[in-house]
């Protein structure tokens, strides 16, 4: 479904992604962890061409993102990206944030778009907040609206950048449930996070990104056994690392 083949990305002299290869299948949840500034968000942004790569190739559904004649609009509707800060459109209500792309990109009628959006709002427990504006929503609600906005376009791939950064433990469990629900619909997901508890609960496969290099690890290694690899991850519980060290 999503395939990165020897991807290299540089910003000036600095190599952010070095020969990164990764494949995520439909219904699979891949989690990428790594210290701040290790290139995790850049990795996500290359997948819908918000950033271009310097070498290698990226394929979605077997088709290269760098083939000639690629329709970027179509690609971006197929690859949903939920930002860490959500970036809802501040002049539109929560519901309009979802209906507007449906009307403009999917060419649905307003009534149909509203019906679809409201169905998703109900599914995500947002129906009573649909008329609220982004500045009236809590962090968790904003996050869910952002997920709904991407999901409404029926993407084949979802990219989530720190989806739990603004959430309390209770809402975190909710996001885990949402991620698993998306996976059961056959959506491939690539999630970047610092939150190891969330990562272990939501992911199928785990990757560490350090100094531009990506390596696959199991969840035990991710959560416990590589303190030097996890250096810089803010949410690693100190007690857990000490216990492992002991």
């Amino acid at each position, binding site marked *: 479904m999503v395939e990165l083949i020897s991807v290299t990305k540089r910003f000036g002299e600095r190599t952010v992604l070095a020969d990164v290869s990764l494949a995520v299948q439909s219904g699979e949840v891949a989690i990428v962890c790594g210290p701040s500034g290790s290139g995790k968000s850049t990795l996500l942004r290359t997948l819908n061409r*918000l950033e271009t790569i310097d070498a290698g190739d990226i394929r979605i559904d077997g088709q290269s993102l760098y083939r000639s004649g690629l329709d970027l609009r179509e690609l971006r509707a197929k690859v949903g990206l939920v*930002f860490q800060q959500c970036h809802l*459109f*501040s002049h539109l209500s929560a519901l*309009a944030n979802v209906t507007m792309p449906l009307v403009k*990109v999917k060419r649905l009628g307003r009534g149909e778009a*509203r019906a679809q959006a*409201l169905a998703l709002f109900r599914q995500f427990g947002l129906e009573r907040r649909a008329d609220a504006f982004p500045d009236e929503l809590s962090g968790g609600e904003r996050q869910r609206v952002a997920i709904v906005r991407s999901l409404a376009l029926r993407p084949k791939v979802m990219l989530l950048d720190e989806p739990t950064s603004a959430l309390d433990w209770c809402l975190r469990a909710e996001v885990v449930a949402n991620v698993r629900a998306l996976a059961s619909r056959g959506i491939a997901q690539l999630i970047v996070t610092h939150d190891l508890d969330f990562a272990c609960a939501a992911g199928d496969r785990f990757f560490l990104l350090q100094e531009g290099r990506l390596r696959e690890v199991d969840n035990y290694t991710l959560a416990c056994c590589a303190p030097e690899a996890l250096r810089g991850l803010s949410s690693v519980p100190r007690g857990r690392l000490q216990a492992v060290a002991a």
Partner: protein
Amino acid sequence: MRYEVDWSILARPELAALLIDGVRYTMIVAAVSTGVSLVLGTALAIARVSGSGWLRWPAELWVNLARHIPGVFWVLFFYFAFPELLPATWGSALNGWTSFALAAGIVALSVDNATYVSDIVRTGALAIPRGEWEAARCCGLSPWQQWTCCLIPVTLRTVTPPLANRTIHNFKNSSLCMVIAVPELTWATQQIESLTFRGIEATLVATLFYVTVALALGVWARRLERGGYRHWRGAGAVWRRERGELARVDSRR
């Protein structure tokens, strides 16, 4: 010599008609040139922040040239010089057109105001967080849709106060059209002064009119700013429609 104010002269039908026509022409010049300059200025701003050098550099050049030229120059240019630059038949046709002075005045003020509007809108667009631009792209919107559905509405909210100031300024600038005999309010007061040798009464009425309209524009702008988008007709309509929809959903439960 002591001047005695005589308000009764303004009741004379021919002078009252001059003032009423003056108000009408002032409003036409101000409203149309403000509307045109908002569109033109926004287009220039989009060109100036666009990634394409072919759009950005000509727009930058034009704005930096045009904003250093006095407004009255544009009025004189479009009325006297512009017809001469056209082929002779077109120039004669323009000069023979009875509304040419009005049209030239509107075009001149539009061009003058658009450069400032462009700077204001550009500043607002650059203040939008990068993430919001990217969110618009990630939704699969075309560049045109990104601007019209997301970026311009957000920008306009940010720049409402300076745009309101500019609109008030452009409204007052409508008086520049008197130099090409557009029968707007300032021109009308001068006519009344020439006909009656009594200028103070008409000038005071005109001043009162300018101040009242400018104050009203200022109050309207502050209400827009304070009320955010819910007072904007388009967004308000969407909001109300969605509220209605949700009320119906709730009532069905």
